[in-house]
């Protein structure tokens, strides 16, 4: 079925597969270290990320590299294991001396390697949407954050479906922090959390949760369940006749559940996305064409894969602006403002205060046949929250993760 795309994934399996062409490009190559899970439970999401990175490297090297220097990409597969993330991050930074580190899927893996990045004073791109709040001068975040996803999605859901909300979240840092964000955003809207459940990762049986929901009678479900096992919720809820509207920052464009489950399990799911494969603009279509030409059997180009692709162009723009791969020179480019690139979603820029990325956000939903519709176009939204609460990396670098309940001390 998906043999061809997988074989190309397999080609990257040996720990030190080096991607890049023997071209006539001058000077030393720019070394990029990539950590993406392409085996284990997260393989489904890690493979598109690897593909996105490989596609961008191929395109950039084909057009002369970065400042005439070829990109040499070293990909390691941590297999969803945080201890391996740490081991491999050390290996890439210390032994291979890569110029930049990219990757990581879960927030747990990001927080596992961030201290290592900080100690080595290296530059790191995190390419997923996440719960936000990391104020760290060594990290550039490419994915969407709560003020882009949740501050758009939750008020819209409250207006359309009602104020009674039931939260189902994975029991680890992403789930807890995103649930906290939900409470924070719902409060001024007079929203009410009628139930909140944290589910251990790996749990696949939801009869009790479904019954609790039926008891609580919410207007809609705030879904923060993570991983293939927990995704079984949709099938089981649908079979039990629980057809409530759902909203989530990680479904549809990230986990492509609407492609994996038989309709109508995902009916009435809503999400706020900066990228989804169904996005129909000339730039997006051109990007999809190039992707499918290289990976014809890709089941879905998810937002993680898209962000991974964009991250390399962002790095190229920064290095060319700085005329150096040194972290301090690159950060000066960000500090000046106007560190922008033309991405398939439109122009996106790195915010100097938080080193997070602005995104063009759209509210999407899934119908009973699992077709994706765009319900609202929010335009470009800045990653404003960290700057608002006092994170300003141009002045001070706390290297900490903040949340609505854990704000930076006023300086």
């Amino acid at each position, binding site marked *: *079925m*998906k*043999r061809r*795309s*997988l*074989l190309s*994934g*397999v080609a990257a399996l040996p720990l030190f597969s080096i991607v890049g062409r023997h071209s006539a490009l001058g000077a030393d190559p720019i070394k990029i270290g990539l950590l993406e899970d392409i*085996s*284990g*439970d997260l*393989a*489904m999401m890690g*493979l598109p990320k690897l593909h996105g990175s490989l596609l961008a490297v191929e395109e950039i090297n084909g057009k002369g590299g970065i400042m005439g220097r070829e990109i040499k990409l070293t990909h390691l597969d941590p297999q969803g294991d945080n201890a391996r993330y740490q081991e491999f991050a050390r290996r890439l930074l210390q032994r291979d001396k890569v110029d930049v580190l990219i990757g990581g899927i879960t927030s747990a893996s990001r927080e596992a390697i961030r201290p290592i990045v900080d100690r080595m004073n290296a530059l790191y791109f995190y390419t997923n949407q996440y719960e936000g709040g990391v104020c760290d001068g060594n990290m550039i975040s490419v994915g969407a954050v709560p003020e882009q996803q949740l501050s758009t999605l939750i008020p819209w859901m409250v207006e359309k479906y009602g104020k009674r909300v039931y939260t189902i979240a994975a*029991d680890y840092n992403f789930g807890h922090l995103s649930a906290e964000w939900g409470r924070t955003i719902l409060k001024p809207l007079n929203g009410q959390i009628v139930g909140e*459940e*944290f*589910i*251990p990762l*790996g*749990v*696949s*049986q939801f*009869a*009790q*949760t479904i*019954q609790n929901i*039926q*008891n609580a009678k919410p207007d809609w479900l705030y879904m923060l369940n993570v991983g*293939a*096992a927990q*995704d*079984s919720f949709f*099938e*089981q809820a*649908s*079979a*039990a*006749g*629980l057809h409530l509207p759902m909203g989530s920052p990680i479904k549809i464009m990230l986990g492509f559940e609407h*492609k*994996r*489950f*038989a*309709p109508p*399990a995902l009916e009435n799911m809503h999400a706020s996305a900066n990228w989804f494969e169904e996005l129909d603009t000339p730039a997006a279509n051109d990007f999809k064409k190039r992707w499918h030409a290289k990976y014809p*059997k890709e*089941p879905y180009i998810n937002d993680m894969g898209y962000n991974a692709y964009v991250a390399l162009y962002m790095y190229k723009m920064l290095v060319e602006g700085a005329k150096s791969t040194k972290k301090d020179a690159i950060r000066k480019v960000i500090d000046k403002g106007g560190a922008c690139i033309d991405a398939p979603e439109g122009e996106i820029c790195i915010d100097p205060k938080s080193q997070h990325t602005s995104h063009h956000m759209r509210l999407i939903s899934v119908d009973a046949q699992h077709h994706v519709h765009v319900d609202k176009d929010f335009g470009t939204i800045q990653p404003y929250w960290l700057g608002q609460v006092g994170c300003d990396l141009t002045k001070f670098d706390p290297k900490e993760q903040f949340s609505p309940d854990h704000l930076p001390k006023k300086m």
Partner: protein
Amino acid sequence: MFADLFAYFYQFADVFAFLVLSAAGLAVIFGMMGIINMAHGEFIMCGAYATTFAYHAGLPLPLAQACGAIVAGVIGIILEAVLIRPFYSRPLDSLLITWGLSLVVTQGTLIVLGSSMPGIGTPSGGFHIGEYGFSTYRMILFAAALCVLGFIYLLFKRTRFGVHARATMQNAGMAQALGVRRNRIYALTFGVGAALAGLCGALYAPTMTLIPTMGATFIVESFVTVVVGGANVLLGTAPAAVALAITRTALNGLYGQVFGQIGLLLAVVLIIRVLPEGFSGWLAKRAS
């Protein structure tokens, strides 16, 4: 009132079915044959994948599920002859070889079939009692769990094959001397275990995400049930599943899934401490 009572029963039935179905294959292979089968989850995955293929090829769901169980069973018989047979007297090595098998199968499936597969979709059909909606399919799973328990009991207690199998597991040399074809019994028994694991995958395939590592979801529950059940799987599996299901259902309902899972594991520790030979050891002692 009735609605609430039924809701409790439904929750219990759901957990019970999951424990019994995930443990049945392992009860035969680990409980009876003594092979610590670390590839149990992969037999389950195999059943689920075969079911999905058969369903997408146009078979009706029940037939597709039968296919899933049969495919897993046949693969089990082949693997027993090729891989497992030299390891009957070496339980720790059998652990290693089945673990290796599990890694190879998981990664092989990922490479050959991709990181995920489009699902089947749970057969629609549900019913309402009071304010609660229930899925009929979950009740079918409960019935299937009861059938599996009955099937294991009848197969090993009431058939010639069952007598031969139990004799072989107790004393292979003696059984052979009495004319039992030892290798065939081993292969068939292993095949039955693998087919039961495949059946578990086949039955849960419509309700779950299909990925190569899906078998891991069942592993903890299956080992826990078999260990609590004790050496005699005909006697132990059912009471073990009942006890664990009651514990988990109560804690799930009162404190949520996190405590349900913690409670399940604590209950296992306690039961093993009090009844070192599991439920079957305790029942056998009371009987004698």
